[in-house]
């Protein structure tokens, strides 16, 4: 069976092919600005990394429409189970760029207390943006569990879990998809097919015809959307979310998009991504695509872009200023939050560490860069 061609909404002329996203002008501009904000964040993070002020970042370029389109289908009472490449989902829902930047710097104000690598965000407010972990795929069954709790309590909230093409090979994909379908959990699986898992192209990941088809193995609907078309992603996600809210169970959405940068700031994609492929996707830029739509609606000009870009830049600059002005987490954060209460052996280890620092001076920090 061949997968159908991806759902797309925004036409070459900018018209939204008979689909009304149901968004006000302000809301549309919020979507747009969020994409620009992601770009500004990305650019700044890259510079910070290159100059050694932070250790690591993850580029989002090319994927912004998927992130924002999907996020726009959720309410604040829904829960997000993001991957590390989902900056736009947090920003869309009003997570402060400064709070994300605190994580990039791993400072005392970071909600993860500087314990995780950069881009491993965790928020509970203004939306539950679940603590990102590095192991691929583990958050899929977790999202199912959280969604199951909604269902058991009779709440109509939904969990959206986002992961990459590589993530579909993980164990969590198999168990998460299977449990969700058997339990009819209110969860939306968003597979961001961006062409590569680090350096491995999708042909090395699966022999199936795309990823949406994998839904059939679990008995749930699977849809493919053009991931560079914000409205298409929004539409598909909305449908999946509504079905889930009404007790119709889970959906797998494959958003076809492309990672326009390296896997991370430590990666050199020119080693493995053919130039022509990049050039091809360059033409499908998701921000420009959405601009065409806004323009056709009469709410976009170059000036609008320039103004919004400036305000995004300012927001990110302020975020960096705030984050950089905040000190490192205190030594005790090594020992806290292992358990709800500090057990005696950790109290002793902590005391010994303080005591040693007093007698022999502090440990010397390294250069702070994640070298890969």
């Amino acid at each position: 069976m061949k997968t159908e061609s991806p759902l797309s909404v925004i036409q070459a002329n900018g018209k939204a092919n008979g689909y009304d996203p149901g968004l006000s002008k302000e809301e549309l501009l919020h979507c747009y600005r969020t994409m620009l904000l992601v770009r500004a964040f990305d650019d700044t993070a890259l510079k910070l990394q290159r100059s050694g002020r932070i250790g690591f970042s993850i580029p989002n370029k090319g994927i912004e429409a998927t992130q924002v389109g999907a996020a726009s289908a959720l309410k604040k009472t829904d829960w997000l189970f993001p991957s590390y490449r989902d900056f736009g989902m947090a920003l869309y829902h009003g997570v402060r760029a400064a709070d994300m930047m605190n994580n990039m710097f791993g400072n005392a104000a970071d909600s993860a207390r500087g314990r995780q690598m950069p881009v491993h965000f965790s928020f509970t407010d203004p939306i539950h943006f679940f603590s990102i972990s590095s192991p691929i795929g583990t958050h899929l069954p977790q999202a199912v569990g959280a969604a199951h709790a909604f269902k058991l309590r009779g709440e109509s909230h939904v969990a959206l879990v986002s992961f990459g093409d590589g993530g579909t090979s993980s164990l969590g994909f198999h168990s998460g998809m299977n449990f969700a379908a058997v339990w009819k959990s209110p969860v939306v699986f968003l597979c961001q097919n961006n062409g590569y898992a680090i350096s491995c192209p999708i042909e090395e990941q699966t022999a199936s015809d795309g990823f949406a088809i994998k839904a059939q193995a679990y008995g749930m609907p699977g849809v493919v959307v053009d991931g560079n078309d914000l409205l298409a992603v929004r539409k598909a996600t909305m449908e999946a979310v509504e079905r889930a809210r009404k007790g119709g169970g889970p959906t797998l959405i494959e958003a076809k998009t492309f990672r326009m940068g390296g896997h991370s700031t430590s990666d050199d994609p020119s080693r493995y991504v053919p130039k022509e492929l990049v050039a091809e996707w360059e033409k499908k830029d998701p921000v420009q695509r959405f601009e065409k739509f806004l323009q056709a609606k009469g709410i976009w000009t170059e000036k609008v872009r320039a103004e919004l870009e400036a305000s995004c830049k300012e927001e990110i600059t302020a975020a960096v200023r705030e984050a950089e002005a905040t000190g490192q987490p205190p030594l005790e954060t090594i020992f806290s939050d292992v358990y709800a209460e500090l057990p005696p052996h950790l109290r002793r280890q902590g005391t010994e560490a303080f005591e040693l620092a007093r007698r022999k001076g502090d440990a010397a920090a390294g250069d702070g860069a994640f070298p890969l």
Partner: protein
Amino acid sequence: MPTLTLVQAVNDALKTAMRRDKSVLVFGEDVGPKGGVFLATEGLTTEFGKERCFDTPLSEDGIVGAAIGMAINGLRPVAEIQFQDFIFPAFDQIVSEAAKLRYRSGGQYTAPMVIRTPYGGGIRGGLYHSQSGEAYFCHTPGLKVVVPSTPHDAKGLLLASIEDPDPVLFLEPKALYRSIKEEVPEGHYTVDLGTLRGVREGKDCVVFCYGAMVPVAVKAAEQAAELGHEVRVVDLRTLLPLDEEGVLEHAKQVGRVVVLHEAPRFCGFGAEISAMIAENAIEYMDAPVVRVTGFDTPFPNTLEHHYLPDARRVLDAIERVMAY
């Protein structure tokens, strides 16, 4: 007070918890209508409905992963892994996720949940129905690891585990499931995690043990008494976090120590106990610690009685520390 076996006490604890708190859920492979392969969950689906006690697909990764998701969202999941030997597909979810979630999210997300699983040898289960993997989990900060050895403790510790704010691995010594009965209080009570249980008095030597090795230690202690040695037996019952002070206190009081477990010796839990005592109480010791453990091999079947430490081996160790 009713007289219960250990597995009945587990069942009683589950019912007690589910009656008190409707956010408590029980699930796993075959725990529903069948009541679990050891009948630990018998009657739960009947009493609480299949929304609160239900079977899952055959994926330990899914079971533990879903439990974490439920726990962060207000439920109190009690997941069963059919045999501890089959917990390894969930190792990533336990070690990378449940154990580290509070830490990595600065306490924003936490996983108060229990993973119950029958463990240990003595039922002719061979390589894959007999293992004692406690050391793997005790080397994992963020987890708690509990092992009851009596029906009373099984119920009280399980209730405490279900109410605990952190993820607890609850290892049930399957060899003891039906071999002992005792009076178990009705209704709710807890036994605090992180506390030791003095099983038997003695001033000459102490055997530290847990799970199915507790009755083995007692038997050996009784035999030692005939030889004139007064052997104390201490049940560790919470392995992580361990009551280290308590362990050292016992060691210092008697000066001679045997450490006993079923799991292989190399890098086993006993190494930590032995090291801890040697490092912190050496001035009080009259003899080096002796470990009695399973061998550093997979678990055999026909010859499991040779593999599992028995009173014969423990007594020999007692004689050795006494003769030092």
